[in-house]
């Protein structure tokens, strides 16, 4: 399967652990869901591993909408990872 590009964003302590706020990345074609993307990212290096180790405490949005691990992802999607929100 051919890979595809996604635009990734990281916020709060995920951004700090990963060491960047955003990146354009090519993911393998068999990555179909947000959960699979998280798992794949966690294996990319110690910063990612540390960010995604928190597991359930990581929330995500696909194309600016909150999404669950089962959410589908595809070419060109904007995917953001962040802790539970604490505004207001």
């Amino acid at each position: 399967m051919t890979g595809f590009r996604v635009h990734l964003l990281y916020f709060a302590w995920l951004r700090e652990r990963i060491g960047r706020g955003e990146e354009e990345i090519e993911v393998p074609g068999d990555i179909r869901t947000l959960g699979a993307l998280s798992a794949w990212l966690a294996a990319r290096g110690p910063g990612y591993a540390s960010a995604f180790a928190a597991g359930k405490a990581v929330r995500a949005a696909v194309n600016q909408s909150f999404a669950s691990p089962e959410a589908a992802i595809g070419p060109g999607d904007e995917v953001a990872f962040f802790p539970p929100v604490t505004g207001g």
Partner: protein
Amino acid sequence: MLRIRVQEAPFDIAAEFAALAAGRADIGGIGCFLGTVRGEVGGRPLAAMTLEHYPAMTERALAAIAAEAEARWALLGGTILHRVGRLPPGAPIVLVLAAARHRQAALDATGFLIDWLKTRAPFWKKESFADGGEAWVEARAEDDAAAARHDTTK
């Protein structure tokens, strides 16, 4: 339509009330919530609170929250104003206003807006302590419970 703004600058509370009421006399009540930076956390003095957000999503999330409030109550106007950046103790962070003919709708919508904003808008707070330490604020279970309350009522 509710007025929505995210900004670094302080806001002018009186001007926001005035803007809501300008040129109309059908408003009977305006509910309001102002959130401010507390000066200490568990007795540990705070030097500043830094607010980060996800701009493209914030806009959509706040618009959705505002639309939901307008669907639930006959609002005659409202305002959601959220600051970002580094804020000192005592500084205003968030202002919510909701105007209606009667007070109950105004107050209920105000509570709804701030509860949903706390749990559904992509903002994150980092505490910078006077002793040099830093910590990201953790989401509070009470906030989720407060927001969930609105799922069952109405």
